[in-house]
């Protein structure tokens, strides 16, 4: 008795839906809409038993799914190459911009870009899970050895140049320092701003995490002044923040803070310090021009590593990045330094 009541009340509703489907071409493919509508009409007219009712309610969603799937496979069959790109958080915005522009011109390529730090990218290259590893530092000798032991030969490609800007709060009166002074601040030997010509405030040091290529580059070039035998380390109370945003945020609101970050990430309201390579030398601020003529002391190359010489789609992509005008224009747009001016 209850079953008859359900059928009696749903049949007129179903007929309304079918009529609307026939009118409004519910699916993109109107042929399939008509086919489905007729099939549904066939089944509702012959609704006699409980079992047929159940089949109908199973059939409508199945039909919808089949039509939707049929449309999708035609679109995705165009993509034939997937490139996995992972690594430095410094390069990630640049890599994303490149990937979007390249995919716009070459529809058969799909590029996936992830961050995680230079160490993460190189580890993934060694594990064989990515095609291109982004790194803002050079590959270390122990990483190269591990690669050789796995039969991988990492090949280095220089894709852009970057300057590391040392930033302080806009209220801070200090605007120029020598490389030695910055090294002593970060290693804990100088603890008060008045020792470098500022106010009587304690210094709060900000840094990126240890998996960041920027961190390693800063350690080697600034703290250790480029000397391989120097074993100076960051002071233990250096704050290791997980992202560039954290550093920028803290420097913006804390007058005691000093931090460092890639030139492309520093907003206009923060103060960048002009740095002298030697005490008594000229103080140079970071910009595209000073990086290109090598007068700014903390400038570095940005790298992409591949396992062996690249081939096929990866080779075309890297070639586009390093040699095409539009790729290097994107570099300049994002605040990094294009390589073609320099080489």
């Amino acid at each position, binding site marked *: 008795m209850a079953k008859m009541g359900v059928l009696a009340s749903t049949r007129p509703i179903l007929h309304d839906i079918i009529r609307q489907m026939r009118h409004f071409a519910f699916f993109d493919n109107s042929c399939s809409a008509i086919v489905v509508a007729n099939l549904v009409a066939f089944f509702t007219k012959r609704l006699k038993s409980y079992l047929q009712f159940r089949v109908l309610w199973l059939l409508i969603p199945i039909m919808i799914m089949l039509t939707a799937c049929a449309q999708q496979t035609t679109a995705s069959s165009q993509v034939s190459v997937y490139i996995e790109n992972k690594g430095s958080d410094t390069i990630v915005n640049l890599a994303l911009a490149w990937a979007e522009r390249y995919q716009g011109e070459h529809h058969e390529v799909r590029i996936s870009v992830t961050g*995680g*730090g230079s*160490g*993460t990218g190189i*580890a993934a290259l*060694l*594990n064989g899970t990515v095609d291109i590893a982004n790194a803002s530092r050079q590959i270390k000798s122990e*990483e190269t050895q*591990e690669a050789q032991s796995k039969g991988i030969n990492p090949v280095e490609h220089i894709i852009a140049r970057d300057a590391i800007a040392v930033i302080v709060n806009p209220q801070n009166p200090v605007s120029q320092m020598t490389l030695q002074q910055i090294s002593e601040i970060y290693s804990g030997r100088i603890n008060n701003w008045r020792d470098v010509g500022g106010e009587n*405030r*304690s*210094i*709060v040091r900000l840094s990126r*995490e*240890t*998996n960041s290529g920027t961190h*390693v580059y800063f350690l080697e070039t600034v703290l250790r002044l480029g000397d391989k035998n120097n*074993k100076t*380390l*960051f002071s*233990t*109370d*250096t*704050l*290791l*923040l*997980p992202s560039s945003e*954290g550093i920028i*945020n*803290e420097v913006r*609101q*804390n007058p*005691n*803070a000093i931090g460092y970050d890639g030139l492309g990430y520093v907003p206009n309201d923060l103060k960048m310090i002009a740095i002298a390579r030697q005490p008594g030398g000229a103080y140079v601020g970071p910009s595209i021009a000073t990086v290109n003529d090598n007068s700014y002391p903390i400038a570095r190359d940005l790298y992409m590593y591949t396992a062996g010489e690249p081939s096929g789609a990866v080779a075309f992509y890297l070639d586009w990045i390093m040699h095409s005008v539009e790729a290097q224009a994107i570099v300049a747009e994002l605040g990094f330094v294009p390589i073609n001016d320099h080489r």
Partner: protein
Amino acid sequence: MIKYLHPLKPGARWRETLISVVIKTCGFSAIVFVGLIFYFLLREGLPAFSEVKLADLFAVRWYPIEDYFGILPLLSGTLIVTLGAMLVAIPFSIGTAVFIAEIAPHWMRDILKPLVELLGGLPSVVLGFLGILVLTPFLRVYLGLSTGLTALAGSLLLGGIAVPTIVSIAEDALDAVPQGYREGAWAIGATRWQTIWRVTLPTARSGVLTAVMLGLGRALGETMAVMMVTGNAPVLATRWDSIFMPARTMTATIAAEMGEVASASVHYHVLFFIGLMLFLISLVVNVVASRVVFHQKNRSERVLS
């Protein structure tokens, strides 16, 4: 009328067996999963003992990219932040639970209890975000610290995260105390506070302690919020005012560094060793708690209940 196995329905008996097997499997699977996790941690963490000397493993500097694997600063960071969180959370949460269960009128209780549970549903990342933007500048300005990114900020946030957990469960425990206990206390002339402090709370002691232990477990395991506000500096806490200095917890270390380690390297094994330490600390806390919670009632308590 209790319906037992209907003798005329053939499928009833196997359905009963099936359901009881499924339920037993679910119950045992909880133990199996915990055992498997422990085994996995042991397998990946114990090689750290053979790769790093014990003295180096418990040294004072943590800087893994130069092979300094001293985990003492991490242990002290977790300890300070968790203890601070408990110091903040316990008075607040027990007070709130007592208020909701004993003192608030019914209409207020119906508003407060869902509100507290809603607070418990907030994702901790959101609270971490609020911590960076609001809490740390406030701490820097009003406490005169050089930076707001300190263990204190982490403790306050963690306390705030643990409070809803503790309040929900403690309030349920206080509700479960029989009304007869309170009436007995009032009958002999106790004031409301005396009743709460000397009769109700001690009776609900096991439930309240369970609540505190759950809050402690939540605070120990919290990663994202502390990673954003404690500054992640591996400073060994040696003086009483180390809570006003930055700290690095074990959870934040694992979260920040696990992405970059190569499989089966020394760093990888040491990170798993840190995970093993966290697991063991939680285990110890739970064992201590369960001894208190499940202790056999002595004769006087049995007579009264």
